[in-house]
């Protein structure tokens, strides 16, 4: 029996990625990183800024996300997100741009605690990418 399941990432503009030979996905869920294997219980959770790791036979892939929702059901993993970047395409300048944006956001004083926390997270994750 295969140990693979299907993952689908959609953003508002299009279906970003569809893969059906995935063995494990690690998502940055709100309460900590979460690894999903085949036959995981049905779950809905949402994401904080971080890295999605997709492990499959054809190679591993890493994506940077800023927000999103994960739904896992019947061995179908759907990830809805509005901001996603493939780390393979991420170059220094793009990363620096995102980092700057996130830092600006984090330094704003008129935001509430939650958005402040999210912005800090972004900064942290983007810094580790260096």
């Amino acid at each position, binding site marked *: 029996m295969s140990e693979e399941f299907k993952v*689908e990432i959609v953003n*508002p503009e299009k279906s970003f990625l569809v893969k059906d030979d995935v063995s494990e996905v690690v998502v940055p869920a*709100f309460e900590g990183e979460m690894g999903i294997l085949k036959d995981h219980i049905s*779950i*809905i959770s949402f994401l904080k800024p971080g890295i999605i790791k997709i492990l499959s036979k054809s190679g591993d892939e890493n994506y940077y996300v800023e927000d999103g929702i994960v739904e896992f059901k019947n061995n179908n993993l759907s990830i809805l997100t509005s901001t996603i970047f493939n780390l393979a395409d991420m170059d220094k300048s793009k990363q620096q741009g995102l980092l700057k944006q996130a830092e600006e956001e984090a330094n704003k004083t008129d935001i509430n605690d939650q958005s402040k926390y999210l912005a800090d997270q972004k900064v942290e994750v983007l810094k580790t990418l260096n």
Partner: protein
Amino acid sequence: MASLDDLKKRIASVKSTQKITKAMKMVAAAKLRRAQESAEKGRPYSEKMNNVILNLSNGISDKENAPKLLSGTGQEKTHLCVVMTSDRGLCGGFNSNIIKKAKSYFAKILDEGKELKIITVGSKGNDQLKRVYGDKIIENISFKESKNANYFDADKVGKMVIEKFEAGEFDVCTIFYNQFKNVITQIPQAQQIIPLNNEAEENSSEESYEFEPDEDEILSNLLPKNISTQIFKAMLENSASEQGSRMSAMDNATRNAGEMVDKLTIEYNRSRQAAITKELIEIISGAESL
């Protein structure tokens, strides 16, 4: 009767108009394909989002404490209407269809003695509505700079709507847009987004989900996103409809111009022939009288 020279000028002018409408039709056709594509690509996201929300709201245990975006404020005194139109004209009945739909809804609300607030997206809608409902329009947004509908713009509108909702400025929010059916048909739609209309598909899944964090927190994070998503969907449908509507309008205009050229050409030929005949008669009768 118009002189030969006048007719010639008119034919030339109609022909050049025809060239313009033909070019516009072709541009619209090319844009339509792209808009249609992105409308189709955008569908999975909003469908998935709807699914998740449906599953969530089915799973929620106490309905009374559900987030206000889902269940409403409990009253229906103030209505906010987001009317989404295009920024450019020359697209047939596209804008006026939305406006007509919106106006009949406005009349209904005002008849019931409720308060009305309007946000217009797109300058054409604003132009048409400000004459009658000028004092009701609280905000006018236009995305002339952005070439295609993008999520960023939709998010801006969504955030604004939510801000106003949280400030207690309205109870019910409805968006107006044209749904793209095909090139010839676009259906003006009124869709209520706050409170969310749960067209109870209770049977969707009996399966229980695990939630992390709990349902309420997910819902309260998800619902604002859903507003933006719905608005984005409306924008995509709208831009496909706009191009479709423009294409068929320009196609009609091109055909009408062609008919007009034909008619004018016949008239031109007739009067030319009439002038020749007249001259001939004059010559012959002149010769006979000698």
